[in-house]
């Protein structure tokens, strides 16, 4: 009994203490390392998850803009593209004498002209059978469509509304094709590219190396301007226009003007990656394009991700049908679907 009580009071030896302290330290160090690594991993996962989430949000925002055109033209009518000459201006098709459904059987939709050339009378005086001042509304419809829609809504809108088989050329009462619709110069208010190829063009030939964009950032100069899409050596790419605001209307010009940025996260936390979403709309290379370009840049690592895609969605005519004037009227008055 005495011996037992003595052993109960016995303390640690130095060796025991050292061993136990060492084991304890090793356990604690291991535990700390495990927790630290796990915590860092979770932080990295969280960061990657946020980046992926932002990318997903940007994709959905891009798709949404492709369908709604909301950033380009707010539904409340407060945007600059509602002004006269802009693509979201109200347009009275009845008052303009253009109110039929553009179905292909309609005689007004038949183009009457010489496909070989705009301005060589030796092939015939086509203005006798169709010109913009003809007293027959069906014979003047074609020229009226090109001139008035181009003037009132811009060139992109003209290619959106005009039937797919439109030949973009018409004659005035004197048998002349207006400068705007043939290749006679540079700068604003020229629908055609300035090249030696002088024939009337359909949408295919017209946009083979260029096209038109819709721009909210440069509305005063962008809606009535041909831009070059391809850089064909020293030809199109080297062209200098007469536009004093920005002389270049080449690939970079149309790309920059058509960019419509979306405000995805204006109040994001500073340590979150910065997402940018840009939607572009233009007609080029034989088709109407809606493209979405997404960049996500990490403020911590500087790493930058980019995603680009194009998508089908609401056309300009469809977007205009979604909207009304501040007075509640439709933007297109008197125009039926085909």
């Amino acid at each position, binding site marked *: 009994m005495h011996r037992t009580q003595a052993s109960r009071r016995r303390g640690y030896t130095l060796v025991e203490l050292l061993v136990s302290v060492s084991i304890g330290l090793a356990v604690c160090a291991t535990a700390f390392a*495990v927790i630290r690594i796990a915590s860092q991993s979770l932080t990295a996962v969280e960061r990657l998850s946020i980046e992926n989430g932002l990318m997903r949000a940007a994709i959905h925002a891009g798709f949404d803009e492709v369908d709604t055109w909301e950033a380009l033209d707010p539904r409340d009518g407060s945007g600059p593209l509602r002004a006269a000459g802009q693509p979201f201006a109200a347009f009275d098709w009845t008052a303009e004498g253009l109110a039929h*459904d553009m179905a292909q059987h309609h005689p007004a939709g038949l183009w009457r002209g010489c496909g070989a050339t705009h301005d060589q009378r030796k092939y015939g005086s086509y203005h006798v059978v169709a010109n913009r001042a003809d007293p027959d509304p069906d014979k003047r419809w074609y020229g009226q469509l090109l001139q008035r829609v181009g003037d009132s809504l811009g060139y992109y809108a003209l290619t959106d509304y005009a039937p797919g088989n439109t030949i973009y050329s018409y004659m005035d009462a004197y048998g002349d094709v207006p400068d705007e619709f043939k290749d006679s110069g540079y700068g604003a208010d020229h629908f055609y590219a300035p090249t030696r190829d002088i024939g009337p063009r359909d949408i295919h030939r017209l946009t083979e190396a260029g096209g038109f964009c819709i721009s909210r950032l440069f509305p005063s100069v962008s809606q009535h301007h041909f831009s070059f899409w391809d850089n064909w050596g020293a030809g199109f790419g080297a062209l200098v226009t007469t536009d004093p605001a920005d002389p270049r209307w080449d690939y970079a010009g149309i790309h920059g003007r058509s960019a419509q940025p979306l405000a995805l996260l204006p109040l994001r936390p500073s340590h979150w990656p910065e997402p940018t979403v840009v939607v572009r709309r233009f007609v080029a290379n034989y088709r109407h394009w809606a493209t979405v370009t997404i960049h996500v840049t990490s403020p911590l690592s500087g790493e930058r991700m980019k995603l680009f895609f194009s998508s089908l*969605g609401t056309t300009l005519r469809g977007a205009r049908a979604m909207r009304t004037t501040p007075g509640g009227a439709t933007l297109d008055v008197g125009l039926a*679907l085909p």
Partner: protein
Amino acid sequence: MPSTPAMHRRATVLIIVAGVAAMLAGITVAFLTRMRSDADENRQTQQEFQARIMLSAALQYVQETARLGWGAEAYGWTDRRTGASGPRDRFGVPLGAGSAFPAPGADAARCEAFVMRRPPFAISPRTALNPVLLDPARPWSEILGLTAFDPQPAVAREDDFEAGDRASRPGTSGRAWFRCWRMPATSPDGPHATFIVTCGAGATLGWRRFADAPPGTFPDQAAFDALRGAETILWYEVAWSAAVGAGVTNHYWVVGEDQRGWRLNAIGSPRQHSWRRPHSRQFGGTFASIRRLAGEPLPPLQW
């Protein structure tokens, strides 16, 4: 029972280990939860893309059925010759009349998207059906034998070749679908060519309601509702047009000649520009308007 110092020490280690394990478990649960959440969000994004692909498929369906699929060649939803409601044959006789698509206002066409095991008229992917013989002593007629047809059908029997195997490949069904409903004309003059297309990504196979599907397609109403709730669906109003562009100026251009010296009789010339043929790029028509609808169309519109 009174505890001893040794038991205290063992309990200390146990507490540390248990604590670390609990923290690791917590971190693991958080990680898995985050991954699960990400997977769900990724699925929604994937469905958005799939639904958009279905929009493209639906538009192509409208274009093709404007001309094909009704027993005779047709001339468009709005007949390009007369403006009457199509499809009609070459004599103007209506095609596809009945209570289903393409009759205006009738039941929608339901199209499930999947990959067939072997589509009709499938061509064999085999290449080098006429390999060059490696014996230079043989005559050219044998070296360039061309003894086998190239390309060749995927199957030998002609009826199998025409019929194909329309069963779905594993893993490709139940993912996406579209429906196409033709709007009734508001007047005899039109519109005849406006459709509501519904683009879905999910597993309801394009059935609008549980009651519409044949018995046994879905276990019960609750299962159908669960599948419907997990889908992404987009609605569009689209207006078809017969108008299609072509390279008009190249009717008159003969390669090698000055472009200002257009010929009026260049069509058919062997020196006409090879990639600017003056024929139409396609024969299915184009779309005058595409408009995304804010939500499910309300009656009397269908989808």
